[in-house]
């Protein structure tokens, strides 16, 4: 995707803000609950569409800049749609010293999706994470919720090829 293309606006018509109402009602009286509200909103839409952020700001009577500030501060929140399958390459310390950089290069090279990006067809997102907590089986790659341990570059390519086949089927 080109840098200058505004992705916030894509799919704006499909954002159904009525889905957000029960969440906003539930936390209406809790002034500190912006983060739980954003977490629930992301659970609904899969990411945080601009329209949802604007709605949250208006209904909670806080500036949009505050909502945007919080949504962009935390790694958990995504302002763009995510791939149907998320590949998380662990780069925790144990994984790093066991060769996760090579594993990451293999996966990125095989899938043709840059680290932190989503494939143009929306099938796959590849990201690097700080620690999945499975350090003893390092290096670790999680494809969806399935954790693969003791991955080397050759295995990583095989895993990525299999995923690519399934995703494009």
């Amino acid at each position, binding site marked *: 995707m080109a840098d200058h293309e505004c992705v916030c606006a894509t799919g704006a018509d499909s954002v159904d803000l009525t889905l957000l109402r029960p969440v906003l009602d539930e936390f209406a009286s809790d002034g500190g609950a912006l983060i739980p509200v954003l977490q629930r909103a992301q659970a609904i839409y899969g990411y945080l569409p601009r329209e949802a952020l604007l709605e949250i700001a208006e209904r909670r009577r806080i500036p949009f800049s505050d909502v945007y500030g919080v949504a962009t501060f935390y790694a958990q929140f995504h302002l763009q749609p995510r791939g149907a399958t998320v590949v998380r390459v662990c780069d925790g310390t144990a994984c790093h010293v066991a060769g996760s950089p090579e594993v990451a290069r293999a996966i990125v090279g095989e899938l043709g999706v840059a680290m932190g990006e989503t494939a143009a067809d929306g099938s796959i997102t590849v990201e690097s994470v700080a620690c*999945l*907590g499975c*350090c003893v089986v390092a290096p670790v790659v999680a494809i969806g919720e399935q954790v693969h341990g003791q991955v080397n570059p050759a295995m990583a390519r095989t895993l990525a090829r299999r995923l690519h086949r399934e995703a494009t089927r």
Partner: protein
Amino acid sequence: MTAPAAPATARACEVRVCAGPGCVAKGSLEIAERFDAVVAENSLSDRVRVIRTGCHGLCSKGPLVVVGDDGVFYPAVDTAAAERIVESILSGCEPVEGLLFRTSPGGPPIARYADIPFNAGQQRIVLRNCGVIDPEDLDEALAAGDYAALRTTLTALTPREVIEAVRGSGLRGRGGAGFLTGLKWQLARDAAGEQKYLICNADEGDPGAFMDRAVLEGDPHAVLEGMAIAAYAIGASQGYVYVRAEYPLAVRRLTKAIADAEARGLLGAGIMGSGFTFKIEIREGAGAFVCGEETALIASIEGHRGMPRPRPPFPTTSGLWGRPTCINNVETLANVAWIIEHGAMAYWGIGRGMSAGTKVFSLTGRVRYGGLVEVPMGLTVAALVEGIGGGASGSRPIKAAQIGGPAGGCLPVRLFDTPIEYQTLSAAGAGVGSGGLVVVDESTCMVELARYFLAFTQAESCGKCAPCRIGTKRMLEIVTRITEGDGVPGDIEQLEQLGRVVKSTSLCALGGTAPNLMLSTLRYFRAEYEEHINEKKCRAHACAALSTYVVVPGKCTGCGACRKACPSGAISGVAKGVHSIDPAVCTRCGVCEATCRFDAVAKV
């Protein structure tokens, strides 16, 4: 398989299948299902009870299964082994010798989990019930002793007495800072204000650390009980657990544990019929390392960007919503019930010097037996790495231990006789930290490791104060340049100066500790920096720009596997002839090395 007639008096034999993160990654849930299926097929539910427990500890040998009261231990269990284990239970619980743990192939088997070398020297206080009970079953937690100390507290102790006990025990915060827990409670107790809060900091963010996760998933009631005792001591009626959203299982187990405990009157209004009321809510973090810092954590619970603020006032005076707030880490709180039950002196008696009690470590990296360990303070790093961990996992010698995560440092192998204590480790430039301990061997480049941690802290810097925001960026740029072979004379001195400034002028502990790891590598592994800068050489062959792959002629069989696997077409050669790698085309991806079955591809 057919089941022999059950003896009349048989109690169900307990099969404890580890459902900790390491074992689950190795398929332990499928093993547990296999056990369930075998038990169901043969109608054995009155004789065999399958329990999915929290982490047993020896993650590197998972999936782990421990059977019966004697604790017969089976490592690396597969479905076939599961069936043989059930058969053995039916025929009188004789251990299946072929499946038992051995330190070397063909060596003598060790039947009991307690007897394996990994467990010698460990002392389990925090992890007392981890791997033993079903963490989702309150009755099991109660039978194992959870909430007994809370009952003692509410019926026999005043808040002052509780604080005295914790002060006397010498317990210090296990999240990294090592502040005296009893003193913190005293400050919160003495602070003016009707409404006070108790927060459990479960935002375990250090890469390479999973201690708190293991406790939350393995024995959540121990943490809740510790919170209730702390709340009683400081006079709080409301508590929060601030837990990483990346730990969905911990969140689920905590939610269930809180609901179960409230339903039994162990939490909530009028706990155990006393006048003490304490409610706990869970707040899920949203992925920001800096939120482990107390004031940033508070900002996050209040719904803001998790940015720290200057202290004082400290949270114990003015914290959540401006009220006195005591924040304790998971492991700290999990110690509390034991201290109340056994007395301050018993806890003080474990450990050494000003470091009392035990510490949980996640022992990982290039070590033979890795996993979750709990050891008395004062044990040497050597005893932990060589004794419990069994030494190096590969053929290369151990080089250093990275202790304490991004805030900690690297301890070289020649200083492994350093005892694990707050003072000794921080004097050595490492620090106990939260308990991550990653063993590295000679395949790890210390300059590259420093770059890795600086990249982490730079990305996690909240950006509020200039020393951390700009300083981590500049240090990262210089170290990155060195690893790429573009280091220049004077870089080392500049790094040292930057490190000193960032350490002493940053707003919070994230910036204040961010240079630690780099400074410790400059202190102990300065020669590696100098080689990178002056000779453009990486002795570990880990820096891609300074190393290349070659085929070892004596070992290459000419099988062609590497040539076919190479994604960039850099390898040429004919069948059965020695192959070669074109360094100009090679991208250093490592696929050839991983593919070769003859060890014929080497990094130089």
